[in-house]
Every structure is written in C-alpha cells, then in structure tokens.
C-alpha cells in the first residue's frame, strides 16, 4: 500500500473504524522509511517550508497560462492553495510514481535551491505527477498537511499494527525526532532504557467540557474542585539534573521561560509536574494577553521579563523520584505534589493549584460563577480516585467553564470562507450601535448550522450593498447573539474593545436591527469585568 492510497482510503470515509483499519493496513505494509515519514507527517510534525508560496503560484500560473488575477479568484473560491494548484495545472506529460520517502527527499532538496531553480524543479515534478496524486503532493509541499485522522487515531493504529500499548506509542512519538536521524527500531520497536530519554514528557491528560448536571457525577466529596486557569498547559521535567519544559502542543519551550531555570537544581531528579504557566504578580493572576506579548519573542529583555513574570500553577505530579506514578490515585499524587512544593524555597515560581472547599454542588456552581474575578475560565472537577490518563477521555476529569458573555450584533459584512465553507459567505463581521452609527466590533466564523449557513449565504447575496474584493457589505438587518470569553480595551479597534473567542451563539430572528446592543453596553461589560 502506498501513502497516496492511504490518503485516498481515509479521504473516502467518515467512519473512524474504517480509518483505523486503513492506517493499520498501511502501517503493516509500508517500507520502514516510508513508515517513519508517514508517522512524522500524521503526527503533525512540521517539516518547515520547502518553497515560497509565491514561487509555487508563479510556477502554476506559468504552466496553466492563466492571468494571475484569475488564479487568485480561483484560490479564493477553492479556499485551499494545494487544491487550487492541483485544479489549475495542465495534465501531466508522462507519469511516474514516487514513494513517500522519495517525495520528501525531493522536497528537502528544494530547500537548497534558489527561487528560479526551485520553480523549474517543481514545474517538472508536477508535469510527471499523476493528476489524482497532485493534491496530496501539493499538500506535502505547502506544509499544512492534514489527513482527517487525529494523533490519537494514529497512535491507536500504530499500537495495533506493532502490538504495543497506546501509552507507550504516544510516549515514544513525543518530542524531537526526525525520520532522517532515527530508525524504525529505535523509534518504535526496540526497548529503550529510560535514562536515555530523559527529556520525554508524558502524554497530557485532557478534560472534556461538562455535558450534564454536576449532580450526575455523584458525591461532591469524591471530587477535587480547582479553578480552571487560562494559561499555557505545560509539563516541567527534571531528570539527570536537567530541566525540560513542554507545552501541550508538544513544543519544547525550556528557553522561553528563564524564570524556571533554577528548578534544575532545586527539584529532585525524576520529577514531572503538570500545570498551567501564566503571568502572575503580587498574589494575582494577570490577563493572558500579558503573556502573549513575550511568547513570540526570540530575545527576552529584562524589561519584558519584569512586565510579564510567569509562574506555574501546579496541579499534578506524574513522576516522583524517577517513578512513573500516573497509575496512583489523584489523591495520592496530589499529596506528594504538595509535599514536594512545600520543601522548596519561597522564591520558586511554582504554586499549588488550590482545591476549593465545596460542600455541595451548589457551592461548586458558585465557585464557577466567581471564576472571572480570578482571571479564570471556570472550574475543574477531578475525581480523587482517578489515575492520570492519556489524551481526551471522558469520565474522571471535567472542565466546567463559565457561561460566556453575550451581546446582540448586527451583520454588516460577509466574506467567503475557506475549505468546507469555500464558495459560501460564512465569515461575518458584526456591529453594535453608537448613536445612529453601526460600529464593527467582532468577526465570527462559527456557530451556525449548515442549513443556517446556506440561508445566510443566500440572504447576503440578495442584500449586497457593495463589494470590496471577497467582502460584501449588506443592508443591516440580521441580528445574531455573539458569545465570547473575554473583553479588553483595544485602541487598535474602532469600537475600542477586543473580544476573546467570539462566536455565534444563535440567530436572533425575533430581533430587528434596531434592537441590537450598543457600544455603551460593550463598555459596561468592560468596566464591570
């Protein structure tokens, strides 16, 4: 089975079972090198950029003899560059087949070429790639490769194909590895002594949003109730006197957090702590936005470090004295964590995530309501007897987020969407009233059903006032309730505010445009926050 056949098999089904079966078939039949590359790609490891998209576009425009404006219009309708390229290219001259490894070698070679050379190379390659394989090839070049299978499914299929536990596979596939530096034996198959892999984090255990009444969870005293912090989920690891900090996205972020570097000497060897990294000063959690200003930077000046001081709010202990204790009950892990933190000097930026005292579920609900005062998003419910799982599993850990803010806005602009929504007006801009004027305050892309999307799309097309490229302004008529998690002042926006995670809660068909909220209502939310 070749990689493109796997891609096709997965693309043609929505059944999870069929997808896993296709993966297992591929993992059992693929050549070792191809297998390594496929795992690398399926696990979403970035291979970086192989070629500038401007060069890709230029090559496709030359080959297809289309004017560049027409190519751009096509791109806008299709919504995906790789797909647009595939659809615009002329048929191949003669076709050859390439293994995944050969394709990846070609792509890595592209990196070493000048723009002109790479345009020639990519054009030649396209003209010998079969039409039905060009899309996959283009997906690999453009770097944003996705196949409709989650990492979890890949791990499941690999575990089934190689008769290993899913936990072990997940553990082995984390971290920095590259198909050109490692063999299949070493990556997946051979037994590896723990000390050689001291940088390895554990797979994170993720909570589901609570989807029922909390009373359904049983006795409240069987649960730890903690605040749900809004930061970067991370693992702090100290092994062999070395410190590693991993984010949930499996990025090794050790260098980004110099304030934690002293931990290498302070934490005992063989310690792994799970928690939330966030900005904190004088006993208070600061808004997430403060940390964002320093995350992207390469150089961290003293000024930045003092303006956005970070701590980790610790809530779990996964490894203790070199022993994997994820199978211990949460209650026991937490006691060990508390002991560990108490033994540290006072200036260490590690805080315990306090458990809240709640006698009844009503108390828990009250704690949830108060979350915003603490820059939190709600509460976490963790069963005291629970072990530390892998991935997102229902049952022992729940997040119970606070209801979002809501405001009614008037639809004023529509823009064509991408991918699944290509060709439809699905990206909306909403406004609130400022006297007689409508001031845009939020963009939202999600929240409507497919049927509503079609309806709004038709409405937009029939009520267009003006067109600016892909954007249409419409007569202000439709009202939508928008939900969002946070609000902050922003001089960059016309409305003076910026929202966090805005989305459409529902279509207010019962409301006329005049009945939408006002800028003053938004400012009230900002001030009473």
């Amino acid at each position, binding site marked *: 089975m070749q990689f493109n056949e796997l891609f096709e098999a997965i693309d043609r089904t929505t059944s999870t079972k069929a997808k896993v079966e296709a993966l297992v078939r591929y993992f059992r039949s693929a050549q070792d090198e191809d297998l390594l590359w496929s795992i690398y790609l399926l696990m979403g490891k970035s291979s970086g950029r192989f070629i500038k998209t401007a060069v890709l576009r230029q090559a496709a425009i030359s080959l297809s003899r289309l004017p560049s*404006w027409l190519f751009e219009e096509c791109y806008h309708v299709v919504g995906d560059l790789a797909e647009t390229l595939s659809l615009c290219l002329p048929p191949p001259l003669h076709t050859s087949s390439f293994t995944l490894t050969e394709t990846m070698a070609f792509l890595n070679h592209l990196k070493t070429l000048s723009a002109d050379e790479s345009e020639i190379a990519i054009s030649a390659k396209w003209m010998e790639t079969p039409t039905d394989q060009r899309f996959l090839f283009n997906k690999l070049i453009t770097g944003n490769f996705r196949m409709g299978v989650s990492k979890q499914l890949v791990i499941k299929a690999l575990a089934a194909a190689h008769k290993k536990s899913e936990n072990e596979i997940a553990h082995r596939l984390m971290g920095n590895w590259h198909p050109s530096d490692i063999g299949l034996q070493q990556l997946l198959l051979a037994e590896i002594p723990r000390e050689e892999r001291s940088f390895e984090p554990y797979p994170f255990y993720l909570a589901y949003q609570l989807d029922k009444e909390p009373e359904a969870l049983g006795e409240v005293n069987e649960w730890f109730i903690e605040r749900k912090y809004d930061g970067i989920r991370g693992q702090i690891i100290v092994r062999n006197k070395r410190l590693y900090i991993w984010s949930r996205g499996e990025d090794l972020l050790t260098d980004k957090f110099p304030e934690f570097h002293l931990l290498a000497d302070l934490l005992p060897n063989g310690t792994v702590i799970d928690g939330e990294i966030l900005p904190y000063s004088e006993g208070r959690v600061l808004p997430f936005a403060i940390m964002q200003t320093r995350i992207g930077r390469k150089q961290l000046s003293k000024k930045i470090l003092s303006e956005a001081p970070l701590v980790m709010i610790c809530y779990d202990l996964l490894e203790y004295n070199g022993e994997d204790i994820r199978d211990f009950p949460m209650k026991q892990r937490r006691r060990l964590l508390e002991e560990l933190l108490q033994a540290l000097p006072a200036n260490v930026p590690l805080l315990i995530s306090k458990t809240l005292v709640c006698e009844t579920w009503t108390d828990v609900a009250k704690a949830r309501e108060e979350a915003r005062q603490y820059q939190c998003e709600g509460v976490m419910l963790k069963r005291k007897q629970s072990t530390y799982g892998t991935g997102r599993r229902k049952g022992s850990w729940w997040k119970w987020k606070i209801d979002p803010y809501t405001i009614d806005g008037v639809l004023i602009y529509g823009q064509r969407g991408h991918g699944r929504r290509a060709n439809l007006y699905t990206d909306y801009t909403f406004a609130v009233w400022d006297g007689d004027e409508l001031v845009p305050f939020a963009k939202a892309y999600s929240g409507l059903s497919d049927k509503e999307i079609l309806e709004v799309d038709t409405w937009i*097309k029939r009520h267009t006032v003006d067109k600016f490229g892909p954007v249409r302004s419409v007569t202000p008529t439709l009202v939508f309730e928008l939900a969002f998690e946070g609000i902050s002042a922003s001089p960059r926006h016309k409305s003076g505010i910026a929202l966090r995670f805005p989305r459409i809660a529902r279509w207010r068909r019962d409301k006329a445009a005049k009945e939408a909220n006002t800028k003053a209502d938004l400012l009230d939310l900002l001030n009473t926050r």
Partner: protein
Amino acid sequence: MLTFNDKGIYCSQASVYIDPWMPVEKAIVTHAHADHARPGSKHYLCHRDSANLLKLRLGSQTSIQSLEYGEEINLNGVKVSLHPAGHIIGSAQIRLSYKGQIWVVSGDYKLKADGISIPFEPIKCHHFITESTFGLPIYRFPELDEFNKDILHWIDENRHNNINSILVGYTLGKAQRIIETVGISGLPIYAHGAIANVQQLLIDDGHPLRSVERASLDMKKLAAPYIVIMPPSALHSPWMKKFAPYEVAYCSGWMQLRGARRRRNVNRGFILSDHADWSELNLAVTATEAENIYVTHGYKSIYAKWLREHYHLNAIEVDTLYEDDLLLQEDSDNAIQ
C-alpha cells in the same frame, strides 16, 4: 432587441419574456428546471420534449405551445427558433432575429455528450447570453466514459461488500444519466418517487430510457445489494434508513471541489454536470462569433472579465434572479417533485 428587467429577459418587439421569474403574458422557456420555468404566466412556449415536463410542474391546464428544434415562428416580425442546448432533455437555446440582428439566449447548456439529450449546437449570432455556473478554470469535467468507469467500480466494491449503493442527483437531468450508467451493473435499481415519476413520463414520451422500480415498497424485505437513486432533498433524511447497509455518493459538477463534497457530508462524490465546464464555456462563446456577450448566473463578473481580457469581447455581467443561489437549488432540488 433584448433587455433585462425585473421580470426577466424581455423582447419588447415580440412582447415576450425568456425564462421570466415573475408571471407574464407570454414566456419562452429554455428548459423545465424550476429556476427557469416559473409558474403563473399565461402562455408558455418551449421545445416539444419539455411540454409534458412543464405540465407536470406547472399543472396540466397550463397553456403550452411547443416547437421542434429549428422550427421557426414569427412574433410581430421577430423570427424565433429553438436549438439544442445539450443541458437536459428538451433544453433549448432561443434564437431571435429581427432586422438583421441575431440574439441567442443559451439558457443552461453543456457541450459534452451525455448520451441522452440532443447535443449542443453552436449558433452564429451578434449577441450571446451565456450562463457561467462553472466559469472558472478549476472546473474541468471528465468525459462520460471516465464517469461510467468510476461509478461502476464503486458499485462493484459495494456489491462485493454486500452493501447497497445510493446515488444522489438532480431529479431531472442527472437522475436519468445516473440510471443509464448504473443499469450496466445489472443490479436492480430503485428510485425515489419524484425521480420515478419523471422517468416514467420521459419513457411515455418515447425516450429510450431504462425503467426503474419505485422505492416506496417495503425495502427491508429486499436483499442487498441493490441501487437507489434519490434527489438531494432526500439526503440525510430518515427515509434513507430503510436502505441500510449503504454507501452514498453525490453526483454533481460541484464535486470537483473537496469543500463542496465535505459540506454535504457524503463519502464519495462523482463529478457529473449538466453545465458547461471552463473550456466548454470558452468553446461555446467563441463558436457563436458574437461580439457582445452577456454573462448570467454563476461566476459572472469573473467570467465576463476573462472574456474581455482574453478574447477582447464586449462582455458584461447581467443580474438575474437565479444568480448565485446555485448551491441552494442544487441542495433543495426544487427541479421537479
């Protein structure tokens, strides 16, 4: 000679509208799809093969005059004739000629043979009104052979797995093409009521089409594998459950785009269109030798710009009511129910 107003395309000399979307006195209808043949007008003129389809849609009492392809009538000095458009059975381009000026309204059309409708015939004219449903170079539709091969292969796979094959396509046009193709497999074919009605009407009209069973009987008693043909409006409806176990495939020109297929939440899409693709549009427009091109429903502004820049034609976009809601029509399938 022709103008575009809020009721449709109007010829004042002949006092007649072409595909009006509001009730008028006299309407010439290019073909029997709902967005072109709207109810409420007093008199209709259409091709002979569209007459009974129109009656099915608009009522048996509807006043309909029909013509053969190439037959000419005179409406107050305007010579009017109908010519094959290759879109569906009975679809026609309308040619109007007055004082040496010739206009052609193409309605919907395609150039590729579908094995059922009379193929498109290019007509020389001065003014050509074209659709642009698939007026972008990304649309490049396969030939009938390729479609047949792919769909029969898919049915074979399903048959091998003892699974029923459900094919989704427009009631008038696509459904007949799909039935002709899947009939090759030799499996029994059951059709949704709307499709069965149209199929029977066309067979009674003398078209050599395969007959199908109505899918209204108790399907659970039937042993898999068989084939079901249904319109898009029945997709994801509870009605489908009785055909389990099944695989569904959607047949449409929109299936060229992955996004369009995923939006319909079907696993397979087969590219099958009754509209012209990019190169067919360009062929058709240039074959008319017309200097003035009016681009209607579809990617009209983009396609008009292309015609101006590439072929140096006097091309403009024209608003029609059926503009832009192609996707909706496709989905709600208000063709003939």
